[in-house]
């Protein structure tokens, strides 16, 4: 064990956990990384390309190396950073990206071939022979690539989504964030304080600095106590704000139960969309390392991370005096690590400082003007080489802390593509002025890294936010804190011939950058793409700026001239589950149920998805073994007796007002408004570009009152278009619209006995052909007083009616009609039979009205009135539309009883079958019980002049071909006598 004294772990609560099946013990407050370090485990992972052994580098979410598969079974979570995995009892973790054990990874052989895997090597080879790419090279690469493994099982946990609104969102609960939250909350603003950590404090927890002379945790505790008293402050621990979106909307993920073995009855995570009037970005800074030869050994860490492990988690990578810890730094801050470790009695080899005039801050060996130029220890650091001028010496060393300066976490500030700006004093990028509106960077994230400055800047950011919101900011007393200036050298990497890693996870070395420069991949985006720099899971947080510095050195330009680096959301990886939310499986999208759904279900109907709707597809009866049997029976019943079908899903729009008729004339291509009161008219609607859009009926219920119907698919769209026309095109018209699709249940009663059946439900209403002829409509009552609307329209070609009642009575009316019609052979029919009936009658539906067809193609050219203007009328006359010679025809198989397939293409007999000779296609096909065989509808080149010609329907994708005879597009009652009967 390498535990130290102190720290923020609960030594009274011990947790048992396993890593690669070996059992260890840690404490509450540990992360997986700190607990592994405490158990003396330094080797935690393998790198992406060379499969180099790796240990933990950082202590936060920027960790590039210590990636594990957390949990097991369906809950396996690949690529989890050990540094942010909160320890719990029974935690199970496995190392990843290895073949064999972590210590003996067979793919480690890649490292010996590293010279062959230089930047971009794969673009230059693997091209011969061509067929080998998919068969050999690529599978090889794919197997070796990737990091963790998915379980391939469905995620068993639940997720939630929610909205939050606040005046001030504070992102990060370190020194700046806490001060900002305190000031804002005291001012009475609605405040949300988020931090990705499970404790508040940020770096205040990981440094030994005192506040007002006491441990910083005292101040945090008192603050937390005060926070409890604010009803206007919401503290969200374990919550990462991952993205900044428009108009002050922030995406955040709260890890509700990731710190438990299983979520139990809670959700695992919640996605919050936080709308904030102002946000204070107090995201802190990330330390950068200094590339040097073989700087990637387990045991080489960031200096501040080493300090964090010692101070917060009471752990050091080693406590052995024989194998001490060394520090390599280019700045003053690195020395703090040595001091903190020494104060905890950790043996220190010394501080290696690249600066000739390096200051000394304590009693340790100082190697001024020196550099680390090499390391030994394949599975864990054993020795380092320290070079001063021309003199090099090897030293035993089990861990090395590297401090290369700090990069402000500008991530969120650049989500709106604003560029960070270079600060020559800080030697780092800070947020620019063109960040997201309303987002105020503060503290270390704005380049103000001392504790005192961060506290003050947090309070200042709060004052700015509050005053912009018209609120008065109280003066808050901030504790006395360190304010040490940090001197730093403009020193970015140790020159040398061996590989010096810049991006650890993706194995990008200084050599790769040199090669990219040599090959003219100089723009920073080319550099990244050529070398894969910054594309690992840390998205370049630990590597981008260092790489820019190396490239700048090569080009002789300054760093800001060489390029900037901006980030895209998310800040850290967000589980796909939480973004997808809880509505998966059958709940993925809402289902709309028709008013007769319950009744249909009780009748054993099979249902089918029609857009959002679930509609009865057919009603299988006892003894029927095949869906076709049911559908044939239903279709026949309609032609012979009477059938019932719920047609509620067709759109209904109520149109009222003095100008309602004029309005409809403009919406429909034909004269719609002139239909007489008590009559229904069929109408065709075009898009403004002249193509056929939708069809439906228009019933005039009163002088100023019309009801139009639309197809099911276009119900919402047609209504939207009508509102557009009413509000945007012709606001001067006196017309009002309301969609009543859901308000009225509508049932089609179709078949020769439909009148007989209907007579049994209407209240004193004359249904005779004279009194209520074809295309009549009326308001009436049924079933002794239930208000209803009746339309004599037919989709099947039979004598038919559609009756509408308030939606809540739909189920009852259906049941009543079934009951009253039992002696008439009344039969419910579903969408399949409906389809058969309409194909037999030659009515167009979605397959014919597919947005690509003209009125002429549909055989409805004459419905586009030339006497008046209407939407699409002008454009329908364009050459391309007018000259399209394809026409809707009926199609009958010749000499074949095989099934005719919709989607087959039509060709002249004997013609070669190519795209040039293609003459059309079968739009719809079905078995017609009326015809006694398969029938189809289709668009055929000059189809209206080719009646009785025999053509070919070719369906190569299913290997079938069939001869068809071209016939008129109605197979039943071509004169239309039945429906007028």
């Amino acid at each position: 064990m390498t535990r130290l004294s102190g720290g923020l772990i609960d030594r009274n609560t011990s947790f048992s956990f396993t890593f690669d099946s070996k059992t260890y013990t840690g404490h509450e407050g540990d992360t997986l990384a700190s607990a592994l370090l405490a158990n003396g485990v330094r080797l935690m992972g393998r790198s992406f390309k060379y499969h180099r052994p790796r240990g933990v580098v950082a202590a936060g979410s920027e960790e590039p190396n210590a990636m594990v598969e957390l949990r097991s079974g369906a809950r396996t979570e690949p690529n989890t950073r050990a540094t942010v995995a909160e320890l719990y009892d029974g935690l199970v973790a496995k190392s990843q990206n290895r073949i064999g054990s972590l210590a003996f990874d067979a793919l480690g052989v890649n490292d010996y071939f590293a010279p062959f895997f230089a930047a971009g090597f794969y673009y230059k080879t693997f091209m011969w022979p061509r067929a080998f790419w998919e068969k050999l090279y690529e599978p090889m690469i794919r197997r070796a690539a990737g990091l963790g493994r998915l379980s391939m099982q469905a995620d068993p946990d639940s997720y939630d989504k929610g909205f939050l609104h606040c005046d001030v969102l504070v992102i990060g609960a370190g020194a700046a964030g806490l001060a900002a939250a305190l000031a804002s909350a005291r001012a009475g603003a609605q405040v949300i304080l988020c931090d990705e950590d499970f404790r508040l404090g940020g770096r205040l927890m990981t440094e030994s600095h005192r506040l007002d002379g006491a441990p910083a945790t005292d101040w945090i505790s008192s603050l937390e106590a005060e926070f409890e008293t604010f009803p206007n402050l919401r503290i969200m621990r374990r919550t990462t704000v991952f993205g900044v979106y428009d108009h002050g909307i922030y995406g955040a993920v709260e890890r509700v139960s990731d710190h438990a073995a299983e979520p139990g009855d809670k959700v695992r995570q919640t996605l919050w969309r936080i709308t904030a009037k102002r946000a204070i970005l107090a995201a802190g800074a990330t330390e950068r390392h200094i590339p040097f030869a073989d700087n990637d050994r387990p045991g080489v860490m960031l200096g501040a991370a080493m300090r964090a492990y010692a101070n917060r988690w009471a752990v050091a990578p080693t406590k052995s005096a024989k194998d001490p810890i060394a520090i390599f730094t280019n700045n003053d801050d690195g020395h703090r690590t040595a001091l903190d470790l020494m104060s905890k009695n950790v043996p220190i080899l010394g501080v290696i400082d690249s600066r000739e005039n390096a200051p000394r801050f304590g009693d340790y060996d100082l190697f001024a003007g020196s550099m680390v130029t090499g390391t030994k220890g394949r599975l864990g650091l054993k020795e380092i080489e320290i070079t001063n001028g021309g003199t090099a010496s090897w030293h035993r060393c089990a861990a090395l802390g590297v401090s290369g300066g700090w990069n402000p976490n500008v991530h969120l500030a650049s989500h709106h593509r604003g560029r960070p700006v270079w600060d020559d004093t800080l030697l780092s990028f800070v947020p620019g002025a063109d960040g997201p509106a309303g987002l105020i960077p503060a503290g270390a994230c704005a380049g103000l890294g001392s504790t005192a400055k961060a506290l003050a800047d947090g309070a200042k950011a709060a004052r700015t936010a509050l005053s912009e919101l018209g609120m008065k900011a109280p003066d808050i007393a901030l504790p006395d804190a360190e304010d040490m200036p940090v001197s730093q050298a403009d020193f970015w990497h140790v020159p040398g011939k061996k590989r010096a890693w810049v991006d650890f996870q993706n194995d990008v070395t200084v050599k790769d950058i040199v090669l990219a420069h040599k090959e003219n991949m100089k723009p920073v985006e080319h550099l990244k793409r050529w070398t894969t720099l910054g594309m690992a899971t840390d998205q370049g947080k630990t590597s981008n700026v260092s790489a820019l510095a190396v490239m700048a050195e090569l080009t002789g330009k300054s760093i800001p001239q060489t390029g900037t680096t901006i980030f895209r959301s998310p800040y850290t990886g967000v589980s796909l589950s939480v973004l997808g939310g809880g509505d998966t499986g059958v709940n993925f999208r809402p289902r709309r149920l028709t008013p007769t759904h319950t009744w249909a279900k009780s009748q054993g109907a099979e249902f089918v998805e029609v857009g959002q709707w679930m509609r009865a597809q057919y009603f299988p009866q006892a003894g029927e073994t095949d869906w076709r049997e049911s559908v044939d029976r239903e279709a026949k019943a309609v032609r012979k007796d009477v059938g019932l079908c719920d047609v509620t899903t067709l759109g209904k729009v109520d149109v009222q007002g003095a100008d309602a008729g004029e309005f409809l004339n403009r919406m429909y291509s034909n004269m719609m408004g002139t239909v007489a009161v008590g009559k229904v008219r069929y109408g065709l609607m075009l898009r403004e570009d002249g193509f056929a859009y939708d069809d439906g009926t228009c019933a005039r219920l009163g002088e100023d009152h019309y009801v139009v119907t639309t197809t099911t698919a276009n119900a919402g769209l047609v209504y939207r278009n009508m509102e557009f026309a009413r509000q945007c095109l012709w606001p001067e018209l006196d017309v009002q619209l309301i969609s009543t699709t859901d308000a009225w249940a509508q049932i089609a009663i179709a078949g020769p006995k439909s009148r007989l059946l209907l007579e049994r439900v209407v209240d004193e209403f004359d249904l005779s052909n004279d009194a209520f002829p074809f295309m009549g409509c009326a308001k009436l009552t049924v079933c002794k007083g239930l208000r209803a609307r009746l339309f004599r329209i037919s989709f099947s070609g039979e004598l038919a009616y559609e009756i509408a009642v308030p939606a809540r009575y739909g189920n009852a009316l259906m049941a009543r009609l079934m009951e009253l019609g039992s002696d008439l052979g009344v039969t419910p029919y579903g969408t399949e039979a409906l389809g058969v009936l309409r194909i037999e009658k030659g009515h167009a539906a979605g397959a014919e009205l597919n947005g690509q067809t003209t009125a002429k193609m549909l055989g409805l050219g004459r419905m586009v009135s030339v006497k008046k203007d209407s939407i699409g009328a002008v454009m329908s006359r364009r050459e391309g539309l007018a000259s399209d010679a394809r026409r809707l025809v009926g199609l009958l198989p010749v000499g074949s009883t095989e099934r005719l397939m919709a989607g087959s293409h039509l060709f002249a007999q004997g013609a070669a079958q190519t795209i040039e000779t293609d003459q059309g296609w079968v739009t719809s096909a079905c078995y017609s019980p009326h015809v006694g065989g398969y029938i189809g509808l289709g668009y055929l080149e000059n189809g209206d002049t080719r009646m009785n010609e025999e053509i070919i329907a070719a369906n190569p994708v299913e290997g079938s071909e069939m001869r068809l005879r071209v016939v008129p597009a109605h197979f039943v009652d071509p004169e239309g006598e039945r429906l007028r009967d």
Partner: protein
Amino acid sequence: MLIPHPLLGLRDAQEFTYLGDANLMNRPDPNAPNAEAMFCDYVFLRDNPAGVHRELWYHEQGDRSWLVVTRNTVTHEILGAELASDVALAHREGSK
């Protein structure tokens, strides 16, 4: 995104359906001698500016009003929103 609905205040853009350039309100005269050419411009051609754009949004999951929203297509900043029917009527008044 949040749309400042002139009647209902700030509303989430998810409640709206987007149509496009507000010029779609200016339907050409179908009886003009060059009506077909004018309609082709109207239906197909767009200024498509990188910057301030007046555009139509429909409050489909709300009060079903069409709005003319002025928005910057580079920054997504919204500069204002009006009821489309008010805009259309004012345009009528203006052209009288």
